């Protein structure tokens, strides 16, 4: 039992934290976060050079990491630094490219030359892949896609988009295929918490087929993405609580610092308790990744983080008062990120329902 970071992880975490602290202040961040292309190539190259992208993939597949632990270490720092670069989409896409043996493409993504995104969710599908409706049809040796994908993270400006689509004419239980398209047109917009998102209308688009049965791989990648989001939330809430405490210590009202009001103190304590709980459940999800308990534990984590992240964000704004409501104050952007994480890859309710589907009351993984 050991909860310390390994030496390598400590190094990676430190260098990433230092890089963001020194090169990525809130103004820099906000300049790219809310305007197309939602992405600063120089930041991206620097992150790639730090090894951030390569750490998403195992050595055998061209990377130098690839465990859930690697991913969590990185995303916690991205969260602490409120990095809005399209790292989530890259994680999801790269995992699939690499797992399906697209070594060359994967290598270019790892180097930061090429950006990839994963188009899986649809306007009516949050979490349950069996409800996907986009289809792929093979005509001669050409695959054509139809349907609409939404919430494609990092799609604006991506070089490659992987699309998950149901194989046509294969009936109810048709397998899910994975298809590659190059720099498709998309309906792009900034996210309210920063970063780019897009819908893609497939509409007969021609695509390269990478797999004709990818459901399990996609679910694994999504679970890893959920872990990444949880870790990002833990980083963001840690920073947000820190600056809330700082603010309460500085700000005076009625001749006393806000920090001296017991009612406010107790609320901060409750935030800290939940932050520790969020860190713990993320650790649990990391540990369960790749075990039979993966899906259920990841859903526990995503549920708890969804609830507590937005609660902590609301409390932080409230404890700041007016200043917490302003664009200029960095805390407001952290708060938005924490709330909106619950809208990515399934929310608290979606994941509670997934937990229930996966048998309620099963004993926790470790007890065995």
């Amino acid at each position, binding site marked *: 039992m050991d909860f310390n970071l390994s030496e390598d992880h400590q190094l990676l975490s430190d260098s990433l934290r230092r890089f963001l602290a020194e090169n990525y202040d809130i103004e820099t961040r906000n300049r790219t976060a809310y305007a197309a292309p939602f992405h600063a190539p120089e930041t991206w190259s620097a992150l790639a050079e730090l090894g951030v992208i390569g750490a998403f993939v195992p050595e055998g597949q061209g990377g130098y990491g690839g465990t859930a632990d690697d991913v969590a270490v990185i995303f916690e720092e991205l969260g602490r630094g409120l990095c809005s670069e399209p790292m989530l989409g890259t994680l999801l896409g790269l995992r699939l490219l690499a797992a399906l043996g697209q070594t060359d493409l994967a290598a270019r993504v790892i180097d930061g030359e090429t950006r990839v995104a994963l188009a899986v969710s649809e306007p009516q599908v949050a979490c349950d892949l069996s409800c996907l409706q986009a289809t792929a049809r093979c005509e001669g040796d050409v695959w054509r896609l139809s349907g609409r994908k939404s919430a494609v993270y990092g799609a604006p400006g991506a070089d490659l988009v992987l699309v998950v689509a149901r194989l046509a004419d294969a009936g109810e239980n048709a397998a899910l295929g994975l298809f590659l398209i190059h720099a498709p047109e998309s*309906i792009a917009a900034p996210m309210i918490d920063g970063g780019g*998102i897009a819908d893609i209308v497939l509409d007969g688009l021609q695509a390269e087929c990478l797999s004709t049965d990818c459901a399990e791989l996609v679910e694994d990648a999504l679970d890893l993405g959920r872990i990444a989001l949880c870790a990002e939330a833990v980083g963001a809430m840690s920073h947000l609580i820190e600056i809330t405490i700082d603010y309460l210590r500085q700000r005076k009202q009625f001749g006393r610092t806000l920090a001296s009001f017991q009612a*406010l103190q107790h609320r901060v304590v409750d935030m800290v308790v939940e932050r520790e709980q969020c860190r713990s459940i993320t650790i649990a999800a990391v540990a369960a990744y790749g075990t039979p308990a993966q899906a259920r534990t990841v859903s526990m984590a995503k549920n708890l983080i969804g609830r507590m992240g937005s609660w902590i964000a609301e409390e932080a704004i409230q404890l700041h008062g007016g200043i917490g409501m302003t664009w200029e104050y960095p805390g407001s952007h952290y708060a938005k990120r924490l709330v909106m994480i619950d809208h990515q890859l399934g929310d608290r309710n979606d994941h509670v*329902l997934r937990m229930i589907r996966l048998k309620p009351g099963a004993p926790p993984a470790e007890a065995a």
Partner: protein
Amino acid sequence: MDLEFTDEERAFREDVRKFLQRELPRDIAGKVAAGKDLERDDILRWQAILHARGWLAATWPKEHGGPGWSAVERHIFSEECALHSAPRLPPFGLNMLGPVLIRFGNDQQKREILPRILDGSDWWCQGYSEPGAGSDLASLRTRAVRDGDHYVVNGQKTWTTLGQYANKIFCLVRTSTQGKPQEGISFLLVDLDAPGVEMRPIRLIDGGHEVNEVFFTDVRVPVANLVGEENQGWTIAKYLLTHERTNIAGIGYATKELERFHRLAREITRDGRRLSDSPLHAARAAEIEAELEALRITNLRMLANARDGAAGGVESSLLKLKGTQVRQMLQNLYRSALGSQAAPIADELSENELTVPVDAARAAPVYFNHRKLSIFGGSNEIQRNIVAKELFKE
């Protein structure tokens, strides 16, 4: 016990409904329903329509151009306005400065200023808060020093809502540093065009521009612009705070928001199930509905108390507390209902590129913006302090 409105009150509600259905411009109601920002002109247009009907200054007595409504009528009017997605009227001239002048202003002030509020010639904004004085208003530091027939004003105000649309501001300024901090404050009217006044936008969390900072540098203000006596400003400010605030609970808005959620839930499908069939969402909505229904009655109870002449300082705190909680729960529920489609900033998409109903597309920014409800206008912590003081008084 009787919850029924009188026949006259019902008839009045019917009048208001018909008026709103006929007169409220569709384009404006559409923006309100979708949570979009209104232009200056949208609001002026609506004010002019209300003014033509004599219904603009709900809280003013008839002699000054108000409709002469009872508290119950004012309640019915504002509830119906919310239910019909009428714009929320900026309260600064109509519900704040107007009543202050009527109570504390001299004849000339009443004669000159009140009509210009009604006809839209003046747009007033509020200069109360300062960077170091929000909840703790008594510590304000903007100075007004007498110099012949003028005050010379220096200092800074903040959180000035819709100041960008205004040409006038009423301020609390420090005219004396003697005695208790409350005792040296005056209520002063300032022309925003006066030399030395500068207004800068504050962008809020949702990216919108609705509040401002106002800077005063050696601004000369005629002594005639003083309302009431010098150093009487605290009394005036308190009068405004305890002045009946009909719509503080926001019942009409909340009712509309719940209805909006149910409509959306019937339209949205998520993971193979209509959202309205999702027991978790339905249960949450039902529980909030119960709280809202209770709040509706709480509001009526306090309205009846006010009508019967009972004092209501603590009561308006209770309404503010629960009212903001209910509305924030509803904003939260609505945002959650959209799932991943709450993320994009919909302003940047044309309406036919949306896969959610246009009304819902601004759910997230509206949610973030409405975190202000529990902060502005006396934070919920301040409201709790007020109630606690009453509960635990010796």
